[in-house]
């Protein structure tokens, strides 16, 4: 099962994207656990994830999260801006898969 963590300022705007991503994963028959947390919990929750995606308005967190994520050998990136704005579950999911594939 793929575990994708989304991090945002308070987890509000990202929750819509989570739903869309879950719907897309289900539609292609893949099992995925996708959840969103605020930036304060992200470092702890990373331990459970295969990849971390950050909301674009918190892009300045990337460096700090990458350091933490390196401990678990997982990748971190900023969610594609258009995918985030249009709640494009497919695009965000594919971005997450690509990040996981390079492990």
């Amino acid at each position: 099962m793929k575990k994708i963590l989304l991090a945002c300022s308070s987890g509000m705007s990202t929750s819509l994207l989570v739903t869309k991503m879950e719907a897309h994963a289900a539609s292609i028959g893949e099992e995925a656990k996708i959840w969103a947390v605020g930036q304060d919990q992200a470092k702890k929750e990373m331990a459970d994830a295969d990849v971390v995606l950050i909301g674009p308005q918190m892009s300045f967190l990337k460096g700090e999260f990458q350091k933490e994520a390196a401990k678990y050998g997982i990748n971190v990136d900023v969610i594609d801006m258009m995918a985030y704005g249009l709640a494009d579950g497919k695009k965000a999911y594919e971005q997450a898969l690509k990040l996981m594939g390079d492990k």
Partner: protein
Amino acid sequence: MFEKLSQYLVPIAGKLNNNRYLAVLRDAFMLAFPLTIFGSIFVVLTNLPFLDKIMSEESLNTFRTLFGNASPATMGIMSVFVVFGIGYYLSKSYDVEAVFGGAIALVSFLLLTPFVLQPENGEAIQNVIPLDRLGAKGMFLGMITAFLSAEIYRKVVQKNITIKMPPGVPPAVAKSFAALIPALITLTVFLLINVFVTAVFDTNMHDVIYKAIQAPLVGLGSGIIPTLIAVFFIQILWFFGLHGQIIINSVMDPIWNTLQVENLNAYTNGDPVPHIISKPFMEIYTVGMGGTGMTLAVVFAILLFMKSRQMKQVAKLGLGPGIFNVNEPIIFGLPIVMNPLIIVPWILSPMIVTLVSYFAMSSGMVPPPTGVTVPWTVPVFINGMMATNSIAGGLLQLVNMAIVFVIWFPFLKVIDRVNVKKEQDEMNKAS
């Protein structure tokens, strides 16, 4: 050019966001948040405009007295929560026993607080703490004291100057003894500061900090020009895709929150509200009208008057969240970020609207926010009414949204034309 500016701004945003002290300050105010919401609910309830029509004057007064302690117990002593919060979260960030850090910070604050009430005429009353020293007036001293106190505490702990209990002693007891020496050292520092200030200068730290730091800073922050500058930077940061409020609030919140508590104190006393600018003003009259940049008006403009398929799709997605003032779909979907075509309305309309709101209130047409906390996710018009306890507060927001609509319209039309042509070209190519 935008790319270079973005590369410059992102690390600054990161540094501000990750700065230990600013993060702790943010968390400490978050601690006070549920408490102030509670207090605010009762201020709103006991001041609903139609109450005097359904209750006799006597029962209204009884109602107000009975339920009137929710606000003093929360907003009225907000410095207490902020001080404890800072002590707690700063200690936590250093991985030392946080609850002792909080308690020690609180006592440090009390050690600097005069336990005497000096009325204008008449004898001083001993063994009381004037309430406002625990509220608005003590805010900046509280913040400074808490940071200093927690720093001393954690340094002593980290240097291992503690009493270590033998194993077998229950952890709570061991922790209490471990905190003993750091507490003694920290508290003695503040006791001595107070001795020095009262014996040598015949004053107290509350008054010193209030006159030297709090009053000037808060006075500065309550002006329209610094407010417009803050709005400008919030918009610029969002233009580069960075969360403008998180960054600007970390600096301005201490001032805006203090202004809010001062307003609420006056309001619950029946006095005129002293400040127009306050935290609720920023939340209700900037973010609270459809999100940063008041984009709900933009959403309506697109849905009603624009023809581009892509824009309408974005606007449809943005309508639901926009009603609750969440507008990331518009910011990243239109997009607003890095889009030179809309930088003019994006920066200009919030500044103009803020100016309009300020003058509506300073001229007395609309009452300023009373100081109650209204969550910024409450929809527009409702949040304006709740914050100002008047219909005029809501109507002002509608006027403001109309102004935003008018400013954005020509720019949206330009983008619309460009998009429509692109969409038509794609259709022609496909057929």
